[in-house]
């Protein structure tokens, strides 16, 4: 088991290097002189040149990339053009809000999505199934930022139940979390339904029924246990969607997270902050998928078996 986990962790390193390389490449190709951006339009050419030398911007590409990686390992991925503060500090300050939002949303999506999918599968082609699956298709097709605006219109402006912005209380977190969870909820319920439908037709389910097992045990133990593997994969992948959605959702509800920070940075052309945000989000996404891989080892007995006795 530990060998499996160790292998996953080792495979994670080249991914991190690759992601950093892509982000560095994009920063490198971005038009505009970073030294000039940091010093502002008023600075003299001499000062700009001096700073270029100091920042190593005149070095060859790969020397710069090597330095970027070494600095990144120490948590330094450049400075914001606008605030002049280190990008890492700004992002870490905003990260808890994004993480809270993503976790809250994923909980809503799992807690509602999996039961919805199970019931739809058990009662395939019933009214419940049809309604749930139409809802799921609409959920996938709806842009989250529009859904967010509609929820604000209905629940904040008309009913006044929830605040339209901010993230400081539980009530303020409800609308952003519901907004962000909707597409994942839809995907998870669709996936659960199809995965369950496939499992329900297997021989071992017929066997379990034939030997007189209670229907609830058949569904929850025998069927769900086996249907869970693709569901776990989808939940892990949904985290990527949640982080993307967070950028839009945070911007709609003014949640002080990494997404809104990036949107502000896009508006002010603060490229190091934009790319830094993408880098941190990609790392977070990879870490979550690493965790999902490790969870697999516990959900899927085949992996355990493969590494036993070694």
């Amino acid at each position, binding site marked *: 088991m530990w060998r499996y986990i160790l292998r996953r962790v080792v495979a994670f390193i080249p*991914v991190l290097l690759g992601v950093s390389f892509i982000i560095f490449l*994009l920063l490198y190709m971005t038009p505009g002189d970073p030294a000039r951006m940091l010093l502002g339009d008023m600075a003299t050419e001499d000062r700009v040149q001096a700073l270029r030398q100091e920042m190593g911007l005149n070095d060859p590409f790969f020397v710069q990339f090597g330095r970027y990686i070494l600095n990144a390992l120490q948590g330094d991925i450049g400075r914001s053009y606008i605030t002049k503060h280190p990008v890492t500090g700004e992002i870490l300050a905003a990260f808890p809000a994004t993480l809270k939002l993503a976790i809250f949303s994923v909980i809503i999506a799992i807690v509602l999505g999996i039961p919805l999918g199970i019931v739809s599968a058990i009662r395939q082609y019933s009214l419940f199934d049809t309604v749930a699956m139409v809802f799921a298709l609409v959920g996938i097709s709806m*842009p989250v930022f*529009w859904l967010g605006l509609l929820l604000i219109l209905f629940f904040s*402006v008309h009913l006044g139940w929830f605040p339209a912005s901010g993230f400081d209380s539980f009530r303020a977190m409800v609308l952003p979390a519901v907004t962000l969870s909707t597409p994942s909820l839809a995907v998870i319920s669709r996936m659960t339904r199809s995965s369950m439908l496939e499992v329900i037709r297997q021989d071992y389910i017929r066997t379990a029924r034939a030997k007189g097992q209670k229907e609830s045990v058949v569904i929850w133990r025998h069927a769900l246990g086996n249907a869970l593997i693709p569901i776990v994969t989808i939940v892990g992948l949904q985290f990527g969607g949640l982080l993307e959605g967070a*950028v839009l959702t945070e911007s709609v509800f003014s949640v002080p997270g990494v997404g809104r920070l990036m949107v502000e940075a*896009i508006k002010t052309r603060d490229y190091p902050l934009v790319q830094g945000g993408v880098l941190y989000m990609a790392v977070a996404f990879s870490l979550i998928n690493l965790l999902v891989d490790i969870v697999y080892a516990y959900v899927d007995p085949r992996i355990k078996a493969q590494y036993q006795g070694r």
Partner: protein
Amino acid sequence: MAKRRSNAREILSRFRRNRLALFGAAILICLCVLAVFADFIAPYSYEEQDLLLSLDPPSRDHPFGADEFGRDILSRVIHGARVSLQVGFVAVGIGMILGGLLGAVAGFYGKRTDNIIMRTMDILLSIPSTLLAIAIAASLGPGLFNLMVAVGIASVPRYARIVRGSVLSIRNQEFIEAAKAVGSSDARIIVRHVLPNCMAPVIVQATLGVASAILNTAGLSFIGLGIQPPIPEWGAMLSSGRTYIRDFPHITLFPGLAIMMTILALNFVGDGLRDALDPKLKR
């Protein structure tokens, strides 16, 4: 030849039996007509401002109302169909051509070539695609075309994976061997024999891909990347209307509905195509 025709006919008839897919196809055809003939169908110009009409709610002359500059929203939504479909098709075209070629080469040659290409794709896949598109769009600078390129490149790894998978499954079949035996070049085998035989999953992915490209682009322009005013892009329209959501919700309502209808239609068609092209893939 006869067999091929009957095959196509069977696919068509399976697609026809799927009512949701037909409904989606009908909406898509309407959208295409709107996009092509926008200049004739739209009652007003998409950039003509009439400040007297500013923020007017829907009325008989302006069924969707007017935005903050007094521009007719219906006309802007109609012209927006042109922008969105263009973005969707161009972005998917870029992703499909680049990704398809990379995937075909990786699957066909295998070994080290496969390893290098697919590990690179894995790295790209570990950046969620909208975020990758944001990063690329930020470094390319503003503009509709750059936005399409960014969204397209961000989708390359998905196509590469799918094509590689299908190529692997047909690489060792007899007709490929036969083509090799008669001395066809690798390029000819890939383009003439391999790619046509793994189109089914690619077509399905492309249809769904147009949907996600449109959604992605709307999201990117919602947060202020890419589209420059006065281009009537739906996401950008939503973005400028959100300021007025409390008192003038009609500005955000209609562009959002347009996005949702388009994506829904594409999803219906994509699901229908998947079931029709390969009943085994049916979920």
